[in-house]
């Protein structure tokens, strides 16, 4: 009897070990990307070649921006350290190929979410981290204050491989204006050509215009026209076919936005563990088992908030305080008149 009991306990222990082992790594097993990331020890993130406020490297090679923060949030959630990210600067043309070919695992590069991109080319958009729209910049001295003053023969500088190129055609066609498109591969060259006087107007996403203006030889000589000619929801993208990884990136972004909604900041996150609000407690890992579904521990979102901050902190640090777009406009929480609204983390 005693003999059997010993055998039985070891059997139970074995089953228990096996069971915890399987539950813990189920998600990791299902997600090749998560497994590879944990093995490598860093998140591979595709960013722009330099767009202030979104993804921009300083002289020391440190990347900052709200797009950069999405990757940092994922690194904090998955690896426990927001600095464990390898950034790959990509041109608009290279970005999707780099993602689908497996060179990077997240593309967080002010990329517009459109149907054809989502459905056609092996990509999945996980959310929106900036609501934008295409606009036009002109020289103040031209006296143009509205796109209605554009005339036949106007030349417009822009980037290739962007939705901008298509919107520009739609816009000028609908107004019946003939125009000369001058499309460059890199944003820096677009700015240089426009700045030199090659083009009458420079068109791209309004946030991009505001950011690039800071790079011009004399920013005060240029204005962004008030009209917005398209919808440009910008957000992070992952490869199609790895739904666990997709969920991790989506909810890392959502956690940042929801943290702002509940007033959890990098400074007060730890003290929020004792909050009375169950939603807040869930978000800082004091209640529920939210991380298990991704194969992560329970403090994944707490680490994001502590190391990267909530969405509002990220916006303020990168976009408002740098003078790019001090007014949050549509990128304000739904509770404060904006359109940022994310599903609940529960």
């Amino acid at each position: 009897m005693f003999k059997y009991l010993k055998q039985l306990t070891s059997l139970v222990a074995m089953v228990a070990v096996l069971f915890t082992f399987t539950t813990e790594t189920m998600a990791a097993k299902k997600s090749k990307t998560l497994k590879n990331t944990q093995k490598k020890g860093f998140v591979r993130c595709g960013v722009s070649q330099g767009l202030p406020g979104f993804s921009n490297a300083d002289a020391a090679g440190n990347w900052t921006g709200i797009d950069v923060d999405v990757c940092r949030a994922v690194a904090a959630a998955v690896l426990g350290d927001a600095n464990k990210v390898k950034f790959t600067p990509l041109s608009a043309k290279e970005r999707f190929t780099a993602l689908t070919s497996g060179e990077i695992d997240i593309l967080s590069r002010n990329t517009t979410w459109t149907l054809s991109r989502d459905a056609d080319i092996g990509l999945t958009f996980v959310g929106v981290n900036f609501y934008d729209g295409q606009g036009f910049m002109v020289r103040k001295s031209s006296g143009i204050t509205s796109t209605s003053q554009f005339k036949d023969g106007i030349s417009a500088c822009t980037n290739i491989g962007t939705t901008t190129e298509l919107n520009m055609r739609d816009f000028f066609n609908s107004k019946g204006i003939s125009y000369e498109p001058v499309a460059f591969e890199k944003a820096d060259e677009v700015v240089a050509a426009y700045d030199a006087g090659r083009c009458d107007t420079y068109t791209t996403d309004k946030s991009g215009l505001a950011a690039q203006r800071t790079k011009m030889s004399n920013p005060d000589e240029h204005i962004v026209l008030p009209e917005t000619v398209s919808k440009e929801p910008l957000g992070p993208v992952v490869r199609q076919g790895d739904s666990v990884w997709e969920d991790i990136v989506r909810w890392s972004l959502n956690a940042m936005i929801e943290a702002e909604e509940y007033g959890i900041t990098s400074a007060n996150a730890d003290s929020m563990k004792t909050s009375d609000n169950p939603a807040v407690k869930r978000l800082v890992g004091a209640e529920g088992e939210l991380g298990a579904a991704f194969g992560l521990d329970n403090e994944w979102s707490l680490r994001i908030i502590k190391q990267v901050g909530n969405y509002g902190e990220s916006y303020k640090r990168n976009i408002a305080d740098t003078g790019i777009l001090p007014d949050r406009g549509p990128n304000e929480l739904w509770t404060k008149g904006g359109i940022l609204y994310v599903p609940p983390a529960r």
Partner: protein
Amino acid sequence: MNLKLQKIIPQLITVLVVVLVFGFFTYNAQINMENRGIDFGYGFLSQESSFDVQFSLIEYDGSHSYFRAYLVGLLNTILVSVIGIIFATILGVIVGVARLSPNYLINQFAAFYVEFFRNIPLLLQIFFWYFAALRALPLPQDADAILGVFYLTIKGLYVPAFIWENLNVFLYSLIAAIIAIVVIRIHARKVQETQGKQLPVFWIAIGLIFILPLLSFLIGGVSLSFEIPKLKQLATTSFIYEGGVSLPPELIALTLSLALYTATFIAECVRAGIQGVGKGQKEAAASIGLNPNQVLKLVVMPQALRIIIPPTTNQYLNLTKNSSLAAAIAYPDLVLVFAGTALMQTGKAIEIVSITMLTYLSLSISISILMNWYNKKIAIKEK
């Protein structure tokens, strides 16, 4: 039999290895694309492209197909290559000959030019001509007319447009003149071979090529007028020229940098060719009573060309392939329009890159075939 087998087996193995390697990569790509839900196919070529292109030789706008956009890019690549090759050849020959000039100033200047331009990376030169030189050009409203009709501005070079009446009559007269010249040349060669007399073919040719088209103006009802570019105001400080033809600065900068760069290599080919002809040849030719012009035309050049043509073919190929750097300065060539915008809008990376590679391959092979044919034509014909 055994020997034959020995020869065949290594070749079979080589073929097998190539097929296997190619097969492996194709299979691999297929599996990966399937896993990521990417479709493969060329059907997108007939879809509407919905983007515009700055500069096109054929009628095109966003309502045309991706295939049409491909043609636009291809023609623009060919255009810049052909213009580049013509200018590079002319400049290269002049500089190559100048390097051999007994005049110290001329040969040193030519040597400096060659060393300077061939030792700076081409992309840097393109950027220099586009960004640095462009900034120095005046805005349209500040531009002074060159010869009263040309305007070189930051937005491009504006030249008068030709407005023809009865253009076809003029073209027929030109074709007639060319045919007449060919006939006279053949006749002149016969006269020289049978009677030893030399006809002044060159002067006759010049005369014909001017007189026949001139006659078409006088009695053929052909007339030519010019449309001179006029300044048009778009906004307070924003102007363009209307009417006439505008050449975008991207085209000018690209052609200029390609021609200046490649000409240095062609100059060296030309110098090598001329120096490769033995001194004795020239002396022998002079001793049988040929004048210096005839020495160059009949003795030196035919031999020098044999040395010049093969390496120059390489330079032509290089220039054509280098034209793909256009993407850096917004000249809408094949790479920018098709492997750039079209690739981005469709996401068909493998299809578009393969088409682009095949296109450049075909272009290069065509140039090779043409030059090899010419090389064979001028090679020593052993009898």
